[in-house]
């Protein structure tokens, strides 16, 4: 029987893997036999994750993705060392809550830079010839914030909206290279960030929870959808955004 979700010896690039959804993706891919290349600023977190991964071919690169200019060199270096990619998942993101009155240009630039700018740059660099293998699939982690407004998350929501728009364009542009690109749209997921939000703004969290018919999501729920989009099972899906939101956007 052919397994349509086959990752043995596939090389997947993963940003933001030290915590939350990224971590769940790393652990799931590991179970499926993939080699994982991780980029994150959280050096101790990468060390922790690396010690949990089975297999010898994973590698982590500590790098601050705010430095957009250095990404090209970083990716070339990784490809020289580890070879081309079969997949790329972008889980990194600054999730700061910032009222509009405090949303100065430098803060906007930082959030847009890490969340969106580094995503575009990584897509650009990994889609160069010889940097990817046939069947290359890219997944960006968006958010329901890009569709349903919430106070104090303007820049974050905008960065995710930008990601979804860009993915629709890139899908068209990259179709002839047979590169697919999609996003997943999670709602409230059980991560340390969510626990903090629940402590600090319980009423807001309760309001949001009412829209999520299926309750609170777990990182593995989003990871499962990401794996589907990376695999051949989704070979006819590109330029789309899949809601993994317990019914949030439908409600």
């Amino acid at each position, binding site marked *: 029987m052919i397994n349509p979700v086959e990752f043995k010896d596939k090389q997947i690039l993963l940003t933001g893997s030290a915590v939350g959804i990224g971590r769940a993706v790393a652990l799931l891919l590991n179970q499926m036999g993939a080699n994982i290349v991780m980029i994150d600023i959280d050096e*101790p977190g990468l060390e922790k994750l690396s010690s949990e991964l089975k297999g010898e071919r994973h590698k982590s690169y500590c790098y601050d993705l705010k430095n957009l200019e250095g990404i090209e060199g970083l990716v070339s270096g990784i490809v020289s060392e580890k070879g081309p990619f079969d997949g790329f998942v972008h889980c990194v993101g600054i999730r700061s809550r910032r009222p509009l009155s405090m949303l100065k240009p430098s803060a906007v630039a930082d959030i847009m830079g890490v969340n969106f700018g580094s995503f575009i740059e990584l897509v650009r660099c990994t889609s160069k010839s010889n940097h990817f293998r046939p069947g290359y699939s890219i997944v960006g982690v968006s958010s329901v914030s890009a569709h349903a407004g919430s106070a104090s998350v303007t820049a974050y929501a905008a960065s995710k909206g930008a990601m979804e728009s860009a993915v629709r364009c890139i899908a068209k542009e990259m179709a002839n290279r047979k590169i697919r690109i999609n996003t997943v749209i999670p709602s409230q997921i059980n991560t340390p960030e969510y626990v903090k939000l629940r402590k600090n703004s319980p009423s807001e969290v309760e309001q949001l929870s009412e829209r999520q018919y299926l309750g609170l999501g777990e990182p593995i729920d989003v990871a499962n959808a990401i794996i589907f989009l990376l695999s051949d099972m989704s070979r006819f899906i590109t330029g789309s955004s899949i809601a993994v939101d317990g019914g949030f956007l439908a409600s």
Partner: protein
Amino acid sequence: MKAGNLKVKQFVNHEFTSNTFLLTEERESWGWLIDIGASDCIRYLTGKKTEIKGVFLTHSHFDHILELNSLLDLFPDFAVYVSESGKEGLYSEKINLSFYHETPFIFKGSNVIISGGKDQIEITDDLFLNVIETPGHNPGCLTYSAGKFLFTGDSYIPGKEVVTKLKGGNIQESKTSLSIIRNMIKPETLICPGHGRIATGKELSE
């Protein structure tokens, strides 16, 4: 591990694999620490008569300082020796990286002594700890030597490439630091890195 009268015990933070080293003598009446990321070390010291006089930090990434506040509960008067830029990490969740791990941590104490290259701190009557500046991994990295022991933090981990791409990292400085460290290693040197096992100078040269 022993060298002369100095005894060194290694403790490991199993989550982040970071090392903590306890420098003491046979009866363990006093002790100094190199980094303090391992809760096993706190457990070891709890209820014992060992008086911890100070902690020497190789750098202040959170996996190396995580138990500072627990240590403060046990020994309210201990001093933290750290570089000037390392001190910033004690009080900033972003600089010590704990913010990005979504587990923010800062030091609650204030007895901090700035250490720099060529400092010598008396550990016992006949032994000094030497401080060597070894930037590269980040600007404030320090290496410490005491007798045959060389505590290199993340500036040198045998078999691993030094991480230099985080803020403040510098590949040139790292190369210079590695050179300084290698020149200090003799066959009988015991290299105690920030992660991983203790290695001898002899085995590294083979």
